């Protein structure tokens, strides 16, 4: 069957299946299982109302459980086992983790990830805050915001191609077609550089791509937060003779501290999962490896599920503090 037809059929089956499930299960509950008539009408209504939420929740919970909760447990199990040739698994304890810890590539990925984790959220948040503040009071601010927000819509792969052209290198005697090298030569550089192969610094050239994408996200959220600051606090500061910088750093920033933290953590999570950019631009060569790409290498190139799962667990471990913080915040709000 043609995939497009299959797609349409899936939409039809999926949508009618969902609607049918919800409609029929509710009908069954109200008409057959606990009908709201007869001697037990009142009790039946109460019982039906106790069960109904679970009818509404069931498909979503099944999807969540199967596609997100179960894999966490299963990955943990896989990271403690090894595949036996011919099928089956054997328990190996922490051996996968030890094997991983002895690999220099893993520590290279860890080191790079630390840089990514510090620099990308910091730069994106700072730039986002800067743009949000600057565009707030100018007439064409909305157009400017729109353009800086635009990379959010571009795939990591697309962004990688865009930036690969910026970083492109031609031999010294030719015209440079990459913007960075053209600028470098223009400002007095002698030899064109192959930016993505310079160890250590090349990671920063990859980070630029993610900062370029994430700044728009930070800007949108921080700009809304800045607009939410009560005017009186700013007016009071102006009357007291505060200059624009003091207003920004002493009055505005402290009031949106929580939002800054939310933006920071959200970008941190994106950074931990970053895979496409490294995969498409360097594939972890020239010391640019990161955890997510290391894991992909282990799982699908080396076919080593044990170590692959162990590195996935490392990513999970790094996310956990944010997870706990988020859950606690959410619970606080609901009270």
């Amino acid at each position, binding site marked *: 069957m043609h995939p497009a037809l299959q797609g349409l059929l899936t939409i039809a089956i999926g949508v009618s299946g969902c609607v049918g499930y919800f409609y029929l299960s509710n009908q069954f509950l109200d008409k057959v299982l606990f009908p709201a008539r007869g001697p037990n009408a009142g009790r039946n209504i109460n019982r039906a109302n106790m069960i109904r939420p679970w009818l509404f929740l069931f498909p979503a919970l099944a999807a969540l459980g*199967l596609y997100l909760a179960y894999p966490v447990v299963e990955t943990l199990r896989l990271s403690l086992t090894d595949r036996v040739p011919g099928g089956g698994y054997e328990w190996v304890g922490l051996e996968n983790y030890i094997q991983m810890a002895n690999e220099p590539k893993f520590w290279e990925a860890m080191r790079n990830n630390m840089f990514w984790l510090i620099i990308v959220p910091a730069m994106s948040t700072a730039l986002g805050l800067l743009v949000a503040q600057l565009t707030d009071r100018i007439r064409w601010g909305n157009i400017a915001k729109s353009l*800086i927000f635009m*990379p959010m819509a571009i795939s990591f*792969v697309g962004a990688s191609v865009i930036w690969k052209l910026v970083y492109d290198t031609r031999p010294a005697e030719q*015209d440079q077609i990459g913007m960075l090298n053209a600028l470098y030569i223009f400002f007095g550089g002698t030899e064109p550089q192959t930016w993505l192969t310079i160890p250590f610094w090349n990671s920063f050239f990859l980070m630029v791509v993610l900062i370029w994408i994430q700044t728009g996200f930070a800007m949108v959220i921080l700009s809304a937060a800045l607009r939410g600051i009560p005017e009186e606090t700013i007016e009071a500061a102006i009357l007291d003779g505060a200059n624009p910088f003091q207003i920004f750093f002493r009055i505005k920033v402290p009031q949106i501290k929580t939002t800054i933290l939310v933006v920071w953590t959200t970008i941190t999570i994106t950074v931990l999962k970053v895979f496409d950019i490294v995969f498409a631009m360097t594939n972890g060569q020239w010391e640019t490896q990161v955890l997510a790409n290391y894991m992909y290498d282990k*799982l699908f190139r080396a076919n080593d599920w044990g170590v692959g799962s162990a590195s996935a667990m490392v990513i999970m471990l790094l996310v956990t503090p944010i997870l706990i913080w988020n859950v606690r915040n959410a619970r606080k709000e609901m009270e």
Partner: protein
Amino acid sequence: MSDIAGTKPALRWVVHASVTFLVVLWVVPTLGLLISSFRTADQIATSGWWKSLFPSEQNLTLRSAAPDTQVLENGVYVIEGNLFDAGTTATISQWGVSSRAVDAFVTGDTAELRRGGTITVDAQGNYRMENSEEFTGSRGARVFVTAELPPEFTLANYHKVLLAEDSSDSMGRAFFNTLTVTIPATIIPILVAAFAAYALAWMDFPGRALLIAAVVGLLVVPLQLALIPLLKFHLNIGIGKGYLGVWMAHTGFGMPLAIYLLRNYMAGLPRDLIENARVDGATEFQIFTKLILPLSFPALASFAIFQFLWTWNDLLVAKVFLIDASGQTTVMTNQIVELLGTRGGNWEILATAAFVSIAVPLIVFFAMQKYLVRGLLAGSVK
């Protein structure tokens, strides 16, 4: 008001200048790729894309018409014509007839041809060759010119990338595959999540708070953890790698954000509305379909855009759950990565392929930016 707010004219200029600088910095990389996608391979390889916007001076080797077009005028053999292809308007500054002296003559000069006869070239590329004897040979004379060419763009790359028969370059198939992945993967989670969000927002049952907390927790669980267990699961239940698997995976991975966004929005709807409907005897199912769904349209739209952008731009999930060895089900992002590997130098193909894949999200982005922003805010600022 803005004058009182501590802004000095000098500072205003700094603000305008810095915003302009940042916007240029943000737009130029994309612009470079867009412009490159309209240039020929030669143009891309020999000059930076920023030069293509202005007339450029180039050294070209051109050829006059062949001797069989010569005519006899008053006892002189003449060949006349224009060195450039029809439609090209270039301005020649210098020219020559030998590769060792390409700039020997200025326009209007007359040069001696090595094989006999003379040639005159004007600035527009019109030439006139004269000879007292018949021109011989099968090909015309070579003319080396230094000419200023106007900016030139072509749609040939798009034609090649979208319609090429050779499937290794073709984005046409990948485009439809991506669409096939994206649409069901956007619609189905919305429906499933909307019911759950309603239950979490407006129904009372034990364990509700715990479930909401669990959804918040699952929001940040890295996708990476799910790859192997789910691939194993898909292989075990027999759906293997394919569209069904990728639709299910995207539905599962999109679920926490969908529930979270929709629940937050639904919880903000006025309580009276729902309680009045309950008092009037509407069933929960009716309240949901007739009242909540239409009112939640903005939140549904927000999530739909997120999910659409995310599934359209995704590489990892497609690589793991969809793309098999046959390569028939490749998506655009994967196609681009393969092009990066095999044709890293062919910028005209790469740039065009990338732009084909970027175009749809960009259209969605600019058309529905309002909902996207609203969704982001609902998801983060709380």
